[in-house]
Structure formats: structure tokens, C-alpha cells
């Protein structure tokens, strides 16, 4: 993208990119002649679209590490999941869940998480799992 200063009829230069998180990026431009400034703000869809092709507006100073985008999306997914239900799983609880047959595991997980949310628990432990099982 390029921006034109209408007053001076010359191209504006990039003045910085402010990362507003997953839903917004501000791309700032300045006119080298008259110092007029604008900021282009991307909407969530535009922000995600740029992110999904693995590029950064304005370029990168550092080189992307191998599989970086994949790893970032895995971490984001984990964070979103925690945020959505507000519950975390203890490692021992995760391990016990593996005893549930694979096909039934997602349903079991959801039932336990719903129980934890209903009871106001922030973390799913073995005791929470027992409690959920007794209540089903």
C-alpha cells in the first residue's frame, strides 16, 4: 500500500506500525514535506487475513523461526480455550482423561469443563473430575 499526501502531492512515508493484538493493527504514515500524519487502522478481518499469510505490515526486523506461525497458532488456541471456559487442566487430570476412549474424549472433556464452570472452579483436578463423574 502507498499513501499520497494530497496537499503536497507526494508519497507519504511509513512512520511505524503499532500492533494492537489479534484484532487491530495501526499503520502510521507521515508526509515528509508538511508533516501531515495519518494512521490506517485494520479491522479484525483484515488483521487476521494479513496474519494468516504469515507476513507483518511494514516488514520484519527479525527472521521468522521455522514453523513459527504454526506454533503461535497452537499457543493462541490454548489461550483462547482457557479464556473461553476460564478453566485450566492440571497435568494429572489431562493424563486421566486419556483413559477415556478416543471417540468419547471430546464429549467427556466438555462435560467436565461445563461442570467446573458451573461450580466456579478455575482448574480441573482429579478431584473435580471425580465430582463431575458423580454428578453425571
Amino acid at each position, binding site marked *: *500500500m*502507498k499513501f499520497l499526501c494530497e496537499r503536497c502531492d507526494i508519497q507519504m512515508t511509513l512512520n511505524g506500525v503499532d500492533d494492537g493484538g489479534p484484532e487491530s493493527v495501526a499503520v502510521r504514515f507521515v508526509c515528509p514535506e508538511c508533516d501531515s500524519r495519518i494512521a490506517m487502522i485494520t479491522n479484525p478481518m483484515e488483521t487476521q487475513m494479513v496474519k494468516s499469510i504469515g507476513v507483518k*505490515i*511494514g516488514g520484519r526486523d527479525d527472521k521468522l523461526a*521455522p514453523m513459527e506461525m504454526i*506454533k503461535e497458532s*497452537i499457543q493462541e488456541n490454548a489461550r483462547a480455550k482457557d479464556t473461553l471456559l476460564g478453566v485450566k487442566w492440571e497435568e494429572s487430570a489431562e493424563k486421566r482423561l486419556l483413559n477415556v476412549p478416543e471417540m468419547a474424549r471430546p464429549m467427556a472433556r466438555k462435560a467436565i469443563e461445563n461442570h467446573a464452570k458451573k461450580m466456579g472452579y478455575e482448574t480441573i483436578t482429579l478431584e473435580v473430575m471425580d465430582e463431575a463423574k458423580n454428578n453425571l
Partner: protein
Amino acid sequence: MKKYSDLQGNDASKISEQVAEKASALACRMENISRKIAIVSGKGGVGKSVVTALFAKYLVSTGATVGVLDADINGSSISNLLGATQNAVQKTDNGYKPAADKNGIFVMSVDYLLDVHKSFTGNTPTWLGAMETNVVRELLADTDWGSLDYLLIDTPPILSRVGDIKDLLTELDGAVVVTTASKVSIKIMLKTLRKLAEMKVNVLGVIENMKELKCEHCGHKNDLFIGENVGKAVGYLAPYLGALPFVPNLEKVAIDELRDVFISAVDKNN
């Protein structure tokens, strides 16, 4: 008012540059791979991943160096099918070294990055749209494949994704289409062949999977789908490479018995 082309300064976003850089990195990585073949089906459940695994086993039995990319990232299964679950991928200065199964097939799958073989919790991302394509691009470009005779790409059972892979790999050597002899599968297979022709993908042929099941006690073979002839349906659209039986256990399969089907695919590629 000036137009974009009138502004002589660089594109401030540098998006085009970054996209070109990524394409160049991918092309570099693919340079030492002699043949890249996509295994395709227009619908799920035809055993495309099993056929990919069998094809890889056949190729390695001929002495070829073989890599398999599981590009079906939202339904990955190749690492399990090839029994390469105990191994991990290793990060090096040159990218990630793929895992290797006991036959020496090099495997790359998101499963290794999700670590699902150790602890599958179901809490894995679903990648869609441009993100899905970019994940496949990263898996291709950031894996240190080394020199390979063949790279097989197990594609998702969505035809549009094959187009995306063809856009990524401008030198895709061909595609093998997998179907079963069910009416629905044949119908979708024909649609797939026409679409691949529009995309100008070189179709090496059609493999009919799960044609029959052999009784392990008496050896009698029963057709799994009655009444449909895949070879006849394919007609002039593509070479019919042959049929594979239902394979309940990849570990016990006698790959020599299946060689005729895969020899045809390789010959077409030559």
C-alpha cells in the same frame, strides 16, 4: 490524482516482498526433491491416507528415498499409519528434521508440533482458509527434507485445497486420485478428475481402494462394493492404475503383492 504506479517510493507494507521471500524459500527447499506427488480424493473415507502410506512403503522398498507430508492438517493420520509415533522431529539450524519410521520413510505432520502422540487432549487448533494454506507452506518450507527421490503429499479431502497446494508447489509432478467403488465415490472421483484437468494438474492415474476383503482364515475374497466398475467409469479421463484390497493392518501388508498398482503410477510419472 496520482495512481499507485506514479508513486515511486517502495510499498510501505512490504507484504509483496515478504510473500515473494516465502515463495523463494519454499522453492529452494523443493530443489533437491526429484518428484512431488499429491495423493488426492474429492471426499473423505476412501482411504487416501492408507494409500499414501502404502505408496511410500512401496517406493522405499525399491530403494528410493521417500518423504511424506501430511497436508491434511485438520485430520492428520499419516504418522499413526506409518507407525512413526515414537519419534520426534528435531529442530536444527536448517529447519525441522522430519521423523523417520522404521522403513526409513521421512514423515512431517502437525502432530509432531502438537505433540499428540504423547498426550492428545483434543485441544488442537482448526486451521481454515488462508491460514490452512500457510500452515502447509510452513510444513513444506521449514522441514529439512534433504535430498529425496519422492515427496508424497497426503492432501485433505477437499478439492480446493489441491489447488492451493498446486499454487504453492508450482512444479508438482502429478496427482494420484483415490476412490472406492461406491456410487457416491465414483461420482465425486469423476468431478475431481475434471477439476484437476481445469487446474492443469498432471493426473498419474486413479487407484481403486478397498476393492475386496480377504478372509484371513480361508483366503476367500469378497468385493466390498457391488455392481460398480471404477475402471470403466474412469474411461478416457485418466489412467486406471488398479485396485487395492482393504488393508486392516499396514504392518502386516505384503507390499510386493500391491506393487503392480504403484509401478503404474511411477511409470506414468517417468
